[in-house]
Every structure is written in C-alpha cells, then in structure tokens.
C-alpha cells in the first residue's frame, strides 16, 4: 500500500479511536503518522498531518488528564475490532466499537448482514444495496446498516452497525439495583462483539494485530 494511503488509513483509525475514547491507541496511531510525516511532500494530504496535529493537541490539552488511563476492563479487543465501554446513566451503558483493521470491512458487513437476517425484528434492507454498482465490471462494497437486540441476564443490548465500520451498542440494565461490577455488563458486550468478529479473540491489548506505518 502506498505510504500516503497508509497514512490516510492510520488517520481514519485514529479518528475512530478518538470517537470511541480509546485514547492511548489514538495517541499511538498519531505518533506513527508524525514519524513518517517528514518523508512526504506536502500534497493535499498534508491536510491529514494538520488534522492529526490538531487531534494530538486535543489529546494533550489541559482538558485531558494523561495520567488517567483507560482501564483494561473497559476495553474490548477482538482480532479486527476495538471497543470501549462507557457508562452514560445509572442503568445505561454504551459501547463504541470500531474497525481497527480496515481491510476487514467487507467481512464485517457480511457478518453483520448474516446476524441481522437471523436476529433482527425488522427485515434488513439489503435489496437496494445489491445493485449499488453503477458501472460495468465495477465491484462496490455493500454496506447495509443493521440493528438487532440481544438479551443476556439483566442486560438488554441493542446493537447498531452503520457506515464507516462503526458499531454502537446500547445496554440497559433492567434489574432494580445497578450492576456491582463492570464485568457483569462487559461479558454481554464482549459476547456480542465476538459474535461479529468470529476470529480468535486477542487477550492482551499489546498483541493486537495492526498494520503499522513503516
């Protein structure tokens, strides 16, 4: 892959990571971009470096306490996806999951289509995407948005998959008292992500299989 394209891919992953609040991973990706920026002429994609610098400044700005690290228990990593669990109300949780291996995008949408066809209460609208290619011989990715619901013990989890390889999971805890520990909600979210990304789960964040800029 040409270096310019790799930089765009790394920047997209960094933006996804920032969206999910996967701050340390975002910093790593931005550092990779910084390391190669001097090797390139400043074409229009020089704008990526500028945006990467702005994002770095935000992450190191006064509003971001770098000593507060994201705890491993909030982070879920599968082979191609990364996700962070957020608590947004007493009984409500949200997981923001994103494609960290961009080459897996087509497989992601195939998996999602398959799961939604089986689980969704609504029929998934794939028909209008099937003829998306407009030119002879052109192969275009089908990217149907999909959602389905999963109920596991005391957690009701709505899984929404949209464009850009982004997944949002909304969890509502239905017991009278909130969960005692994060693992009680994490297990359900992790199960949902592992169902999407069927490959073997990676146990340690540091061993995640990523494409690094060279």
């Amino acid at each position, binding site marked *: 892959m040409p270096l310019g394209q790799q930089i*765009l891919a790394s920047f997209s992953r960094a933006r996804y990571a920032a969206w999910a609040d996967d701050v340390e991973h975002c910093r790593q990706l931005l550092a990779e971009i910084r390391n190669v920026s001097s090797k390139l002429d400043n074409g229009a994609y020089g704008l990526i470096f500028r945006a990467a610098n702005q994002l770095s400044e935000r992450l190191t700005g006064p509003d971001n306490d770098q000593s507060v690290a994201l705890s491993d228990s909030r982070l879920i990593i599968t082979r191609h996806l990364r996700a962070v669990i957020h608590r947004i109300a007493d009984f409500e949780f949200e997981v923001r999951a994103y494609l960290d291996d961009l080459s897996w995008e087509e497989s992601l949408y195939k998996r999602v289509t398959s799961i939604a066809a089986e689980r969704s209460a609504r029929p998934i609208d794939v028909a209008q995407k099937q003829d998306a290619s407009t030119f002879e011989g052109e192969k275009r990715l089908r990217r149907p948005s999909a959602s389905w619901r999963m109920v596991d013990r005391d957690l009701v989890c709505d899984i929404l998959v949209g*464009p850009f390889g982004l997944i949002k999971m909304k969890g509502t805890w239905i017991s009278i008292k909130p969960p005692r520990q994060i693992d009680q909600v994490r297990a359900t979210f992790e199960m949902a992500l592992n169902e999407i990304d069927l490959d073997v789960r990676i146990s340690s964040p540091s061993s995640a299989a990523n494409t690094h800029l060279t």
Partner: protein
Amino acid sequence: MDFKFTQNMLLGFSPRTWPGSSAQELSVSSTALEAAGSYAGSSHIFEMGRHYDAYVADEFEAPEFLEIAGFPSSPFPKQLLEKARSAGVTGNIGETLTGIAAIETFGCNAADIAHLVVRSKIKTPDFLIRKTDTLELVLQAIGVTGLNLPDWWLVESKSRSGAINDSDIEQGLIQLITLWFELKDYSAQDVGFGIVVGTALRPDREIYIHVFTPKNKTQQQALVNYLSTLGLEPKFTKSVVAQIRTYLS
C-alpha cells in the same frame, strides 16, 4: 426510519445526467445516523438517530414502529411545529449524509476517506477522499477529461433543513477556494479540484453533488496565477469568487 434521498450530480453548477442508473436514490436509515453521526458530524450531539427521524420526516410522517396493539401509529408530539430546528443538528446530519454519499457514490472503502474536522474554526475540509476507480468513472461520465486528476479530493458539506440553493453551494466553494489558496504554493496540481455536497433535508430530500475542476490545464495554471495575486490574507468577495469561477468547469 429509512429515508430516501434523490442524488443529483453537477459539474460545477451545471446539472449532469446521473452517472449510472441504479444508485441515484440513496437510502439512509436512522440506524446509520445513530451509529455514525457522532463520528462524522462536527458537533457533539446525543441520539443522532432520533434527531434524524424528527428532522427529516415530513410533518405527517409517522415512524414505522413494530406493531403493538393499543399504541397510536403516530406517537411523537409534533414539537417541531412549535420549536425551531437547531442549525447545529442540521449541520451534523448533513455532514454525516455527505460522508455516506461519498462512500456510496464514489465507491470509497473505510481506508479511502477521512473525516478531517477537529477544530471547527480552523480551515479544514470536512472530508478528504482518495481517488478511487469509481470516482474516475464518475468523472469521465460527467465529462471531466484532459486533466491530471489529483489523488486526493477535498469534500465540503453544506446542509439546510429546507431547500438548498446555489448561494449555499457557493459558500462551500469559498471554503474550497480558501484551501486552494494555501495549496497553490506547494501543491499547485491539486488547485481547482474539490467537491461540495449540498443536502436539503426536506421537503424533497435531495443531495446535490457539485464536482469542481479546472476547465483545462491552462485554466488551472491561470487560477494558480490569479490566486497568487491576491496578497497574503485575501477576502473572497463576490467579484473574486466570480473571477475564480471563470477558471472552473
């Protein structure tokens, strides 16, 4: 809810026949907006999917919930009949739709598009997309020939809750011109190229994809030369923009 937008392709401000026959209608669901809105929009807004349902639906259009006996078919109070739409929410929906239109119409994969805006007050295009095979085919189909196409394309979004007109699109063009002014000194080959996507959320739900290119290589050089005469901090007045438009298709 799923809403269908009619897409229109323009070279500059001149309408072109839609390149291809099957994807002119873009169907976008509230699920897509909910999952991607907080990523591809610039402002921080919760529950983008529900905003999308309310902002894009017609006044008498009810959400199609799964049926439950006893519940009315139109459960939402019609708040938007008495409350104004927020420009920030409209802008976020428009930016997200721009990203979706770009990936669908120009065949971009996740690795071909980046959402660049980090700080809204700094000059940055909303998206940067890589030249894909599909983008090249689209450009050929609408009559862009004889130019060295850049590998990277700036994409600006303009959205309105009602109809969108040429002056709205010109605002997006001025944002492109501002960036071309910077690029002229170190990346002259990229000057004159860019895309403005205008989105009208209602009543007709239309997306206007304006592709800007120089008329030819000579006019591209003339544009670079003209931008170089504008001083260090130019104001892009109506007359300056009118002059710049003479170099563009």
